[in-house]
């Protein structure tokens, strides 16, 4: 197992490298974001431990760049700020997990093992339709920046509509993709679920439906 450790604090990098090597990992250290990207492009790693605060290009940017280059290596982010915006920014940038400094070394090892078990995960792009934002990876949906909580099935319905934004998706298509074979009841169930999604997405200030019903055909998520 070869790991890339990206940390600009010399002492922390040294002790983490030492500890990880003792656990049997081969470690390469990078102390800037650009250096990290350079190394990640040249050699394939089983995992990246990535500090957020780096001189120049920060950890978020490194992670986004890795994903843009279709490098799906598991990334564990180290953040010195436990606040929500940092954590969410990390996951949005494509990190797989995060650990808040100061941390327990045993916890770092446990998180890394969990990431290795999962292996590289290819990520779908975040879908943006107007003021609607859908992240299929974290299953987070926001509208006007506000979180919208959807059940798994509602999320699946919305995701299909969003992937075809501006185009009509038929009831049969939705039924096939969301309910698969298990369901052989009425197509009404699609209408019911679209109704749930609408109810959760729409706000009183909307002047029209965000998901429009096309009579006799299906539904369309308005593209603008």
């Amino acid at each position: 197992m070869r790991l890339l450790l990206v940390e600009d604090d010399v002492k922390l990098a040294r002790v983490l490298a030492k500890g990880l090597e003792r656990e049997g990992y081969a470690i390469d250290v990078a102390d800037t974001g650009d250096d990290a990207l350079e190394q990640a492009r040249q050699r394939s790693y089983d995992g990246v431990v990535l500090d957020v605060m780096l001189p120049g290009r920060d950890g978020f940017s490194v992670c986004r760049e890795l994903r843009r280059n279709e490098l799906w290596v598991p990334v564990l982010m180290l953040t010195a700020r436990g606040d929500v915006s940092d954590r969410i920014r990390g996951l949005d940038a494509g990190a797989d997990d995060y650990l808040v400094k100061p941390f327990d070394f045993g916890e770092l090892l446990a998180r890394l093992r969990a990431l290795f078990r999962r292996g590289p995960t290819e990520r779908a792009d975040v879908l943006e339709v107007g003021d609607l934002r859908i992240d299929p990876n974290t299953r987070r949906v926001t509208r006007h920046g506000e979180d919208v909580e959807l059940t798994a099935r509602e999320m699946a319905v919305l995701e299909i509509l969003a992937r075809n934004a501006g185009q009509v998706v038929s009831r049969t298509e939705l039924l096939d993709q969301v309910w698969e074979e298990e369901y052989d009841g009425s197509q009404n169930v699609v209408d019911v679920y679209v109704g749930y999604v609408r109810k959760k997405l729409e706000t009183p200030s909307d002047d029209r439906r965000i998901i429009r019903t096309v009579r006799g055909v299906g539904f369309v998520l308005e593209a603008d």
Partner: protein
Amino acid sequence: MGALAIAVQERRRRAAVDALRAELSALRRRTDDERRRTADAVHALRGPLTVMGAEVDVYLREEGVAPAARELLASVREEVDAMSRIVANLLTVAAIDEHRLRLNPVPVVLLDAIETAARPFRRAAAAKRLTLQLGGERCQARADPERLQQALGNLIDNAIKYTEPGGDVSVTAWCAAGQAGVTVTDSGPGISAAARAHLFERYYREPARANSRGSGLGLAICREIITAHGGSVWVDSEEGRGSAFTLALPRSAGAAG
């Protein structure tokens, strides 16, 4: 007094009020700057704490460390944890005061959460010959995992700190209609009614325990974090018979809830 004199006086009064206002807003700005600088300074402590913690952790994993050295380093590690908790609490105070405390609530299995929260205290409990018991129902609450850890850590820390050697501390997860929570019970000296009234105030130190260590922030932060989740925190206690601190959170709609 003539009309002119009144007008002059009025103009002077207004000028004085404006000057005061300007002074007040300058003062406010200065206080805000000061607060931010203090928070930044506290934040900077996390760097050295991270290095210290990692150095000790990595060294302790080596074989052949002499028992005395192991003992000493484990004790240093505990102090690093204690300092990290103080730093986290101070930063939380700053975040709350600047209205920047943001939560990212997700379904959390409380049994797992108390297991994680109790881990750093196992050694301290053993050193005092305390029985530290974890258990309860497998419930899910909606909570920000990091913040919940902080709140639970503060409660467990207190229970261990204030319970006499040989006593019992139990941490129990429970669920009820619409709520799920954790109760931390100790066989400590209990808390007087007078002290209970102020227990959750920032920097409050119970007179009877004022000489013990603690920043006076743990319980206040715990309550502020849990309240921000739409939950509540309370204490049941009787002098001489121990205390039970409970935090209650909205229950998660998750299937295992």
